[in-house]
């Protein structure tokens, strides 16, 4: 069982694992997914891409930002059977641009240029502390899983193509 003590204005409670086993009865207010104040995930409620998402790192703002935006937009709005198949030219332009800046867009893996570049660029964006980095990268509010799940498939399928 837990015990607690008071040191002046400060209260200290010690709890065992068993003490915390029962689910919490603390009430949290439900989040509004369309809250305009909140930081949005990669995909905005309107369906558009949030270019300012920390998860993109500096991809949309760097020297090849324009090419990246074009390629990714094309992919995002693509309704082809193989998603993004008509966007080859955009991706090629993006890759050509990225090859001009090997320092910014490391070329370890040609196919995963975007994914790796996105991941590498994510790191610079976030602060080096444990939660801080996951914090800045996960810009979506806690209960929202939709934006973050949207995030992963595009990069995965890009890697595949």
């Amino acid at each position, binding site marked *: *069982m*837990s*015990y*607690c*003590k*008071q040191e*002046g*204005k*400060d*209260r*200290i*409670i*010690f*709890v*065992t*694992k068993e*003490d*915390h086993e*029962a*689910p*919490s*009865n*603390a*009430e*949290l*207010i439900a989040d509004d997914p369309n809250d305009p*104040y*909140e*930081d949005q995930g990669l995909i905005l409620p309107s369906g558009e891409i949030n*270019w*300012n998402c920390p998860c*993109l790192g*500096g991809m*949309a*703002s*760097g*020297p090849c*930002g*324009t090419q990246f*935006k074009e390629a990714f937009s094309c992919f995002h709005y693509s309704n082809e059977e193989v998603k993004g198949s008509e966007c080859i030219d955009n991706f090629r332009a993006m890759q050509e641009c990225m090859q001009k*800046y090997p*320092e*910014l867009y490391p070329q370890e893996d040609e196919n995963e240029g975007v994914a790796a570049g996105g991941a590498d660029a994510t*790191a*610079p*964006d976030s*602060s*080096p*502390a*444990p*939660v*801080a*980095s*996951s*914090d*800045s990268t*996960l*810009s979506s*509010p*806690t209960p929202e899983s939709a934006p973050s799940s949207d995030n992963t498939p595009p990069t995965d399928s890009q890697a595949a193509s």
Partner: protein
Amino acid sequence: MWTCKNLWKKLAPLARSSSTLCRQNARGVLLNNERRLPLVPQAHMSSGTPGSRGDNNLYYLLVGATCVGGGFYAYRTIKGDKERYQERINEIASRPNKVVPEQPITEAPGEQAAETPQEIAPVTEDAPVETPEVTPIVEEVSPEVAAVEQEDPPTTPEAEIAPESVVEPAPEESVGTPDADPVVKSEPTPVAGSLPAETAEPQTTTETESAAEPATVAPAEVPAPTPVEFPSHAPYLLIGGGTASFAAARSIRARDPGARVLIITDEPDLPYMRPPLSKELWFSDDPSVVDTLRFKQWNGKERSIYFQPPSFYVSPQDLEKVENGGVAVLTGKKVVHMDVRGNKVTLSDDTEISYDKCLIATGGIPRNLQVIERAGEEVTKRTTLFRKVEDFKALDKVSRDTKSITIIGGGFLGSELACALGRRSADSDLEVIQMFPEKGNMGKVLPEYLSNWTTAKVKSEGVAVITEALVKAVSFKDGKVEIKLKDGRVVKTDHIVAAVGLEPSVELAKSAGLEVDSDFGGFRVNAELQARSNIWVAGDAACFYDIRLGRRRVEHHDHAVVSGRLAGENMTGANKPYWHQSMFWSDLGPDVGYEAIGIVDSSLPTVGVFAKATAKDTPKAATEKSGTGIRSESETEGTASSPVASSTPEPPPVLEQKDNYGKGVIFYLRDKVVVGIILWNVFNRMPVARKIIKDGEEHADLNEVAKLFNIHDD
């Protein structure tokens, strides 16, 4: 005047001779008259001209000739002066041409006004390319312009008023024509863009430039590694080159396609992150870390403190023409004046840059103790005010060269540096002392029991901690810095690091007409970080309105990122208030860390929920599990006092003695609402903490809230 004098000198003999002649004539006549008419009275002499009528004519002739001669001489003199002056100008104009390459000079004659073609001619003839780099076209125009300006000082002593007035319209004209001509001549846009800046420069600097120094023609001529050229207009101007500024630049570029962003910083470095300077860089195994400035992140990946390598940025002179825009950084320049009505700023070298939207992210400068400032040069040169990269490099060197370092200040920076240096002292015989007025490290942040625990941890890192220490006087005696404390203790050391707070840089407030907050310092801005119509402020310098927590000013890294991003969003039309609560963290050595969010002030009542070590846990297992490593020290936390809560458990007596603040959650309350949370050795739970603060609800039982954090899991 001079010519008048010479004129008179020449004329004087003539005048004298003519007057003598006249007098002689007069005498002659007089004598004659006297002989002829001895009885004629004197008065008769005075009537009419002296001498006979024939003599009068001669006199007239002489005077007339004199005047004509004088006039002719004056004309000749002036003409000669003008020629001499032209020669002088040519000579001076040929001097600055050492910087001027030949190519555009051929265009120049066509460009300049008719009055100055002679100057351009010698310019074309002798244009030795002495500087190694090829300076852009603008620079050639500006030396010419400035050379024209140079005319004024050297010739003032020599020239008459007339030539001077001839000179002055010339600079105006030639200054004016470069403006029009580039448009006609289809030169690249940076020339057109920067010419107004260049022309503005010479006009403002005419007085300041001295005659003998063409070198002062300058900013364009400085043979620096990078040609110092700046655009005269930046759609997005960011003052300050730190974390907030970079975050804003990234935000603007993401939201405004093709945006052109200019960052102006007075540091020589590109934007970098500050936390590693007092943490990770000190723990690096790489001996060349001082030069590479690379560190290992928590996830094992290595990176540089610089947000982006230099290839990310566009050079300032290309900013206006590069196709898709970009971010340019102007280093080593300070903004000294801001004209809000005219939407422009003035740099320390009198350049003006206009903007559409401006962000002020000037951060601050470290505070110093008055006793140190007044202690004399021997003390101040042994004192480090730690903030920038150069301070890190200097302190690193000091830590290798001296035997004793004292850190004054017990907050984040002081404690982190103490732990870092303490760790280093394990390998060398460096003595590390930390002193502060509070009772324990982080005394203003952590509740007392935790502050005591932290102090013990810092001591175990090899730091001699002196608590409740008020510095009364500092002096330099016998080769040592002597610190006298108010209670009489004396500390002798080699070097001082003062970590006593940050003074926000608000020098621009006066010229820009911006409000400065009296409670927190910094520029006062609204919830959208806006100070005035086109001006936003972010980072350490912003005293902003937090909708949830009230007006505050935050000096943490994540806040700089969050506020910079928000400012960038609002500069591109978002109009969002500060809502995403920023967090901060601190490491006490590489093993112990905590994260916090919101208002974390030790004067507030707190409720701490800690994971209790059960009978199953051994100290060793608990150490390995939570990674703290100093279970033994926590025994100093005193024996358990009688619990207040009604539920009195029956833990084994041994464990009851040990108050293990190994891991837990601490809530800071204001009017029963949680306004701040510390996650003590509990990671990846920040979103939960953020949610609780955002709700701003009154919770009856904080233990229930603590359950949300699952502190017992790893």
